[in-house]
């Protein structure tokens, strides 16, 4: 089972802290604008994940991918929500179809510029 967001954040922060003391709970919390006790509870899974904005700030500070952290928090970033809302059925179908494809096949899905007759 994949790690929860809290566990993941703690592990990543501790990893960085091993070589840089600025990655204490207190200092990370200060940089991303959260209360240290709140961040500590998030890490222990005692609080639900914070807002998208806070997750993005944490991702930036911990040099993690914001989309990965948002997915772990069970959230979909605002820009993706807008993409889905534009064509909800089509995007849902597409994602279901992609479910079992290997990464290299998904990477081939970049849209091609169509060449016609000229």
């Amino acid at each position, binding site marked *: 089972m994949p790690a929860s967001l809290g566990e993941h954040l703690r592990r990543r922060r501790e990893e960085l802290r091993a070589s840089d003391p600025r990655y204490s709970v207190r200092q990370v919390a200060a940089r991303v604008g959260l209360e240290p006790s709140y961040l500590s509870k998030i890490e222990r899974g005692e609080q639900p994940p914070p807002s998208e904005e806070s997750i993005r700030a944490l991702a930036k500070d911990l040099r993690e991918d914001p989309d990965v952290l948002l997915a772990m928090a069970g959230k979909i970033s605002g820009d993706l929500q807008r993409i889905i809302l534009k064509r909800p059925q089509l995007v849902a179908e597409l994602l279901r179809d992609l479910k079992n494809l290997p990464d290299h096949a998904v990477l081939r899905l*970049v*849209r*091609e*510029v*169509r*060449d*016609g*007759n*000229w």
Partner: protein
Amino acid sequence: MIGLADDALCFSFAEVHPGARLRIEFQRTLRIPDDYRDYPLPPGLGCFPLRHTDDFAARVPRHWLEHGGVMLPMYQAEALWLNLTGEDLEDRDSSYPFAIRVATGKVDAVTGKAWVNGLEDDPQNYLVSPTQPWLDGYCVQRGVIRQFVAMPLGRGYSVEEQATGRAEHGGIQIQVFPMKREAFERRFPVRSRVRRRFDRMVFSKELQCGGPSAAMGLAPGGRMRQEIYGDPFELEDWDLTRTSRCFVHLVNSAMWKAMTGELPPTTPPSAADYSRAGLPWFDYYDESAKPADGSAVLRGLKSVFRLGEEKGDHSPGENEGAFTPRVVNLRRGLRPGQVREGGF
């Protein structure tokens, strides 16, 4: 295949080599004066927006859908240049080489001949990346080009109309051929790490709209010093069996919003204002490359300003000469930090 990324055409030939990737940007720039002087290279002011023609099927002319490809907005008498960048290959002395054909209104921009698919070497009808870092216009004589300048199709200015008498195609046509894998491995064996890259700064500009009419074609503008380099490889080094091509439609900026719902970029500054602001022009040297002769056909065409004067048409706009006291010299093998950008 060709994809769109960050307003650039991205050609990739993964079946030939994983690093066989070429990025072509259409850079906004100022129009150089058309006053018989040979100007240095003007700056890049950021990319024109590029969109899939298919996405606006209901609002574009039907024959554009037949062409497929992409579209970008240009104001009347606005200029552009093509920025050709191969992907860095850390273990080779060169990015993957490509032969690139460029035509406007299906008239070859290098030879002035009518478009036919494929490569020819006498006269050479293609550019070679990475030897040629950019293309600013029509090759009219050795070391001199006339700038690509957009004019509404049907008004007689475009190279297509001057050369063929017809306003049929407009736009820009691009075809790319990768080097054969075997030739690449032989010419550029795996070596120490060499990085060749140049940074691109993109200027975001305030947006506005203005001007009339729809499809645009490119016409010859002022004269500029730029060499079109001969092919340093052999014609048989190019893989003619694998090629990608793209039709780039030029939409009058005044119609861009109606077609796409997006605002086009603003008009660039005049060359005179740009120079007065103390901003730089550029020259590029590659002593090791052999410049190609210009095309007699293209040399015989009339420039936008000259033709405007003959027709008594003032729509090409102002043509104030510019002094160019600040010229930045760039040399072959552009390094990170070597840019061709000016602010305004």
